[in-house]
């Protein structure tokens, strides 16, 4: 049994988000307590972790994340990040973070121009940030993807910086969407903001067959704990 106080995560809900309950279930299963934070609210006080979940904020109209980045909560999010708070953007959350300029680059439509819901294998390429601090480089994880716009793009300078600072955290073993350098997940320079296209919360339950999402979430919880 843990003796410490449980970590407390806020899950930001935009109109059109749909993975918020799934993220809560997964975080609860690694002993993190969760609360939902409506996109109109202005505070993220008292949270150890903030998750922007998957879904279709504002219907993904115009571009995924294009409207969501203007929500009142985003100002609080910037402050939270500036103060070293840890933020995880999953899928649509990743898209929102890039649109808001909190992560570099952009997510374009999949090369095959189709929505893709399938399991993929990703490889851990960096363990500098808290998200994978406890995972050896080269670890392979089975994680589901579920997106139409997961094709990561950035300019060459940005790419070089991402590579040289260890900001590329996860790469696809077999690229499903045309993503530049097989990128599946990156962090910001400080390492406290991560965006990833795969859904770890969909791989946390024996009954649903794959459980490698637990590996990733446990690693995060472990780093936050210590």
């Amino acid at each position: 049994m843990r003796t410490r106080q449980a970590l407390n995560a806020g899950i930001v809900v935009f109109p059109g988000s749909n993975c918020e309950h799934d993220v809560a279930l997964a975080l609860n299963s690694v002993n993190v307590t969760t609360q939902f934070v409506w996109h109109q609210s202005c505070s993220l006080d008292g949270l150890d972790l903030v998750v922007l979940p998957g879904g279709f904020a504002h219907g993904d109209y115009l571009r995924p994340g294009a409207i969501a980045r203007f929500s009142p909560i985003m100002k609080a999010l910037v402050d939270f990040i500036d103060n070293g708070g840890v933020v995880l953007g999953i899928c649509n959350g990743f898209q929102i973070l890039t649109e808001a300029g909190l992560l570099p680059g952009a997510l374009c439509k999949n090369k095959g121009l189709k929505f893709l819901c399938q399991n993929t294998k990703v490889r851990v390429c960096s363990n500098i940030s808290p998200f994978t601090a406890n995972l050896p480089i080269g670890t392979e994880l089975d994680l589901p993807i579920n997106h139409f716009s997961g094709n990561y793009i950035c300019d060459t300078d940005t790419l070089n910086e991402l590579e040289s600072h260890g900001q590329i955290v996860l790469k696809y073993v077999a690229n499903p969407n045309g993503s530049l350098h097989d990128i599946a997940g990156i962090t910001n320079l400080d390492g406290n903001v991560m965006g990833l296209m795969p859904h770890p919360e969909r791989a946390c339950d024996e009954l649903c067959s794959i459980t490698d999402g637990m590996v990733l979430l446990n690693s995060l919880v472990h780093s936050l704990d210590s």
Partner: protein
Amino acid sequence: MDYKALGLVDDEFDSIKDILGRLPNNLELAMYGAMWSEHCSYKSSRLHLAKLPTSAPYVVVGPGDNAGIIDVGDGIGVAIRIESHNHPSALEPHQGAATGVGGIIRDIFSAGARPMALCDALAFGEIIKRDDSLDNVLNNKRQNSWLLQGVVSGISWYGNSVGVPTVGGETVFDDCYTSNPLVNVLCLGILPLKRLVRGQATGDGNLVVMLGASTGRDGIGGVSTLASSGFVDDAYTKRPSVQIGDPYEGKRLIEACLEILDKNLIVGLQDLGGGGLTSAASEAATKGGVGIDIDVTAVITREAGMEPFEIMTSESQERMLAIVPPSNFSQVEEICKRWEINLSAVGKVTAPGADASPRFRILRGKETLADIPVRSLTTQAPLLDRPSSPPSDLHFRSQQDPAILPAPTSCGEDLLKLLVGNSWIYRQYDHQLFLNTLRLPGHDSALLRLRSPDILFSKKAVAVSVDSNSLWCSLDPYQGAAMTVAESALNVSCAGAKPLALVDCLNFGNPEHEEVMWQFKEVVNGITQACLDLSLVVVGGNVSFYNETNERDIEPTPVVGTLGLIQSLEQPLCDLKQIKGDSIVLLGELVDHLGGSAWAKVIHNHRTGHLPPLDLRFHADLIRLLTDLISSGIVHYAHDVSAGGLGVALAETAILSGIGCEVGTISSHGQLFSEAPSRVLVYTDQPNKVLSAARLSNFNLGSSSPQAQVIGEVDGEFIKIGNLVNLSLSKATSAFNLSIPNALGETVC
């Protein structure tokens, strides 16, 4: 206004005059035109549908309301409903299919259930046909491909975005659907039974409130002109009938409505579908035994200058009707504001006078524009007993059995052609949202944990499968329909679930054709018989007539969606990962009968013959035996024998598991490809237990041939079946996975 242009016939116009005691005005005519259309009134089918068995102790709401509701215990209800969107999808596949998804989802949450899963049953003309040399084949193939791609992208777009996973379905290719695809969508919902709400208006003075999107000119006349007549080549003139979906509005509507229901703020909730506001309001009033006044000036319109008849019959998407006690209105308003949902109180519930029947009145401010007895639009709509007679070629159809066809030069090559995997389709659907999907698509049925944010601790699960077989039904609609029900129930039990109830979507040609009506009646009788013998009830359905193109009717296509229950997830479940080294046991007979088989149709374009016999009592025993075997953990996996026969069933399991098989017993192409019903492959490491369980059950009664036998084992990297088939698993796997993308000329990324 010309009543004929509204789809009304002379007799109907006369009845309207009788009902009103005067000539109807244009608005009233438009309302009758919508409500008395085939689509809204079920006038050709109602008489026959009444035969279906619909009641059982666990049925809380049967057919007739927005969704069927089943009590699965612990205070949990499961809502289920199926609907077709064939005609809009034929014209604009992406938006047509998308709005079909939106529509069925609204049916589910209007009962107070949270939509938890979708299944889509799709049928298209051929895209895979190999002799593409002929121009018309090529043109058809191009059109069919366009329809397939558009329909799948529409379901993917709307379903994924609205946040309801699409967990299963079926996909059929047959030339009878060229230009007239079938798009049937089933939605499942989950609710605490105490949140159940009906689509009914009650309470004199209660407000009639519209929620959601504004009302535009799109979809006007949708039910009377689009869904209630066939296609001829001028289909383009029907353009305004197609609508545009808005999954983002749909998603916010779900959340807002469920929150309103959780706070117990309304007495009735009804979605706006075919027939628009006219249909929603008159049906709600009929169910509640009240009248309704609607003020068209209060309806939020998208365009200026909309006529009252346009407002009353518009089929704009993403709209709901709530019956709200005035004292709760401000609370409802507040919730809607938070979800950015527009709302407007457009009318009031009125109590009928002591002697008078409830009225449906349309007002413009103080001016009365229409005044109609409510029930004349709904329960008193015309009822037809259309003439019917068997098709003149029925006899011919049952002659010429596929037994006369030459044996394959290579059974392996034929098997490859029958392997059509659907991953190209379901990969485009979010099938995992809510973390309830206990197995990925590709199996006989989808298995879902019953859990939602407000029902977190249930141990129950449901399985669901949608199935159809138009070839069977064209040979013998009665038995074909019974076999469809039997297969659907068996699919559900292959996941270990006990089949409880079904919904049916009856897709037929023009009911004014006597042979179509005959097929329809036979199909309803066949479903009825199968339900009685398999202890199933029908809790909802939909009829889609006028599936015809240039006067050619589609083959009769009843789509059956069966729901089964697993009482506790603590029981063992099927697990494909465990089958390595298992014995393969065939439950049911090894038979050599190719009537109605995919082999005859796909390989030889042979569509005649008689169906193999169906023994429904035996089938019920098989289902019981199978669910017992799974729940006691004796078998690791089960897969029923259906399209493509034993050959395809064996190959599919091998492909899905990644392990080959070696099978002895099968000795002829007839045995390999027969689709005789009531057969299942079970995979087990305890074959003797399976055989003795089969022996102990009633299962063997009345037959001399073995009803359970070990036919092979799971091993290796080949699919080996007797002397007939020796295929490398990798070749079979790529044929299976690539059949659709290859036919579409796509490279898989």
